[in-house]
């Protein structure tokens, strides 16, 4: 008889399941230790600090699933952050236009990455290292000095709870409608991340293109022999990465009401995105994992940093501890290689 569905799921998603369990545990303990734990205010603050890295981690996931790396995700986030700080203000129509323009810019940048990788036949890691530097350069042209202006109402509405959102725009009786009650305390950033995931990632995963991304990472030769659209999937993977990075940049602009072409910030986001992808249980070799797993990975990274604030640990220890956690987490993934029967397979 076939295994029950939940057992099969657990078996096939062991990495993701353990990451999820880890996140739930450390976040629960965090709330118990926090003086104002389990409150909407803490959740809102945490969600705000997590949203940008969550988007960038999702962006990184798709090239990684294909067996590549995108070193430009942090830079594209920074670029779109600067673009948003220039355009997301004015009349409602102008604000909407600015948001669309920001997302389109990031998507277009990702498309360019994909075209370079596929038709330039350049390895993703080096192609995106170069285009990442270009993105930072463009960001510096758009915004030579930190600053900018983002619509204040929008900033308030999207970085607080659902009730605040409704209140700001006078929706649902100013947030007091009975049907909104159960959701009133949920942080808006969380809603946004979930919306983007459901509207973009889930359909992508269930398209032939999305499946091809997995197939390329798993066995590119078999994907080719099965007649899958390989070039299209590669271009789509980088394009989507650009879109998610732009979501991160747009959110950062809304959250901080400004843009900042900060090279170091871009680099840190890129490296953290790789860490988040791995922590979530996605294989760097490709084929296994997903963007939802990376959301969990990003959240784990952030929750670890939250601990420093409430436990009064020297912040200088933060990189050390984050590094140790990452190392321990990825060690579990290496257990698999102990089962390999032909040692030559380890090198393929």
């Amino acid at each position: 008889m076939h295994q029950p569905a939940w057992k099969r799921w657990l078996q096939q998603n062991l990495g993701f399941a353990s990451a999820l369990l880890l996140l739930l545990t450390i976040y629960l303990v965090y709330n118990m230790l926090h003086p104002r734990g389990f409150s909407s205010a803490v959740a809102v603050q945490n969600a705000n600090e997590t949203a940008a890295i969550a988007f960038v981690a999702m962006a990184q996931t798709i090239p990684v699933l294909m067996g590549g790396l995108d070193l430009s995700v942090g830079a594209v986030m920074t670029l779109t952050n600067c673009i948003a700080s220039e355009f997301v203000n004015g009349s409602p129509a102008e604000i909407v236009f600015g948001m669309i323009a920001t997302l389109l810019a990031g998507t277009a940048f990702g498309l360019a990455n994909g075209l370079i990788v596929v038709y330039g036949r350049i390895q993703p890691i080096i192609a995106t290292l170069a285009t990442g530097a270009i993105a930072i350069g463009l960001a510096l042209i758009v915004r030579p000095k930190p600053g900018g202006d983002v619509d204040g109402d929008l900033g308030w509405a999207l970085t607080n709870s659902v009730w605040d959102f409704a209140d700001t725009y006078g929706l649902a009786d100013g947030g007091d409608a009975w049907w909104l009650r159960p959701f009133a305390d949920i942080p808006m950033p969380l809603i946004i991340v979930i919306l983007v995931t459901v509207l973009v990632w889930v359909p992508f995963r269930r398209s032939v293109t999305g499946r091809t991304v997995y197939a390329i990472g798993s066995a590119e030769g078999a994907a080719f022999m099965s007649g899958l659209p390989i070039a299209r999937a590669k271009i789509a993977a980088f394009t989507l990465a650009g879109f998610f990075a732009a979501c991160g940049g747009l959110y950062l602009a809304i959250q901080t009401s400004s843009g900042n072409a900060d090279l170091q910030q871009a680099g840190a986001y890129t490296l953290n995105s790789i860490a988040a992808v791995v922590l979530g249980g996605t294989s760097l070799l490709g084929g296994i994992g997903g963007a939802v797993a990376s959301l969990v990975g990003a959240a784990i990274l952030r929750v670890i940093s939250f601990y420093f604030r409430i436990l009064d640990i020297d912040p200088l220890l933060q990189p050390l501890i984050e590094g140790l956690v990452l190392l321990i987490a990825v060690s579990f993934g290496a257990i698999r290689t102990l089962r390999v029967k032909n040692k030559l397979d380890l090198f393929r």
Partner: protein
Amino acid sequence: MSQPIVEYRGISKYFAGVRALEKVDFSCRAGSIHGVLGENGAGKSTLIKIMAGVLRPDAGEMLLDGRPVSFAEPQAAADAGIVCMFQELSLVPDLSVADNISIARPPRRFGLIDRRAQVARAEALLARVRCEDIDPNALVRELSLSRRQMVEIAKALGRDPKVLILDEATSALTARDVQTVYDLLAELKAQGVASLFISHRMHEVDQLCDTLSVFRNGRHIETFAKGDKSERDIVRLMIGRDVEAQFPPKPAPVPAAERGAPLLSVQGLAWQNRLNGIDLAVHPGEIVGLGGLDGQGQKELLLALFGVLRDVEGAVVIGGRKGIPGSPAAARSGRTRIALVPEDRKTEGLMLAMPIADNLLAASFARISRGPFIDPARARKAVDDGIERLRIKTGSASDPVMTLSGGNQQKVVIAKWLMIDPDIVLLNDPTRGIDVGTKQEIYRLMRELANAGKAILFYSSDYAELIGCCDRVSVLYGGRVVSEKEGDQLTEEGLIAASLNIDVEAA
């Protein structure tokens, strides 16, 4: 007689100047099961790869239903109704069975893959191949090789083939599954599907096919109806008359009783389901050949002895000591030193972009170093000796090894291993794809090594080579030694018959 569904007209294909197919005219009809026979390297794979859109012919044209076609990629062939099941499976390991079965053309709903319909479709197709035990939601990597092969068959069925190509599609199947596939092929035949069946199992071909074609050296030799020729005739067609290569003289055979203690003795060697109890002994001064068709466990046997495989079972005695080395490093530096010239020189034998000198020294750095540092004078001398001993034609030892011809590259691999002065030399098809002159040098070298008291285990896909070089040949079939030939029994006919696991005398 129905008209041919696929027809080749004068198709030729070359790889780096080497002929794989030469002016082949070939056709197969709808509603037939057509067996393709030939030795290793006869051109069977190239024949079907062209049909399946993986390779493009260099000359000639292919007709489908009487119209010329040219496929740019596998999908184009599949869309035209030519579905191929390759020896190397075309399944994606990290996707589910259902995903794989409907991989390129999944059922959709609102533009997205309809998973439920996909699972239902997989279940229906798996039921057709009587594999209800396979869970459509399982990942392919969780399945055994034989189950994967059945999934591959279900996947091929789901593409509604007009022409179905089975390349060694039954090699890993259980007896029950083989019967299922036979029934299925008979069913498809009744529906007018043309099946091309490539198998090294003679009795399968005999039982299943209605038409047979024999290929040899890239040429289509003959096509005939089943029953028109005896097995003996067919084997003769497969061998043809080849130009004899020059082999060094063999010493007079030593009777088994006088051989003394073997340097390498193997009993009941088993690994996964690729090796199923191999018994073998190699004495000092002896060249023992490994015969049989590709993929019968020869490569795994050599890898096992070299410490590459894990969890190998069986009793192995090397130079009087029990046990298999734990790794290639241990094999190389044990009391009885073992060298392996690997299957693929480009990935396992050489570091292509590195200089010839570094490649030559790769296995013997310990011998030319003082403390932690390489001694340049000794290194230079070792390199010069290696180049001279094998007469490697090189401009400079500092050139990257990829600038050499195939034959000289292989010499570098061999020279590298000779530097450690091995006691046992394992050779995995060392003459594949290299020129005749170098081949002869390798033959001579092998005999020199044997005369110097080394034990040599030599796998070759070329029967003439085995006959010309070896003192004895063990023929492998299904991970077992099925026959051991020496002296007068060591004939091409005998080897081929043993490879196919048939008895020519009885035929």
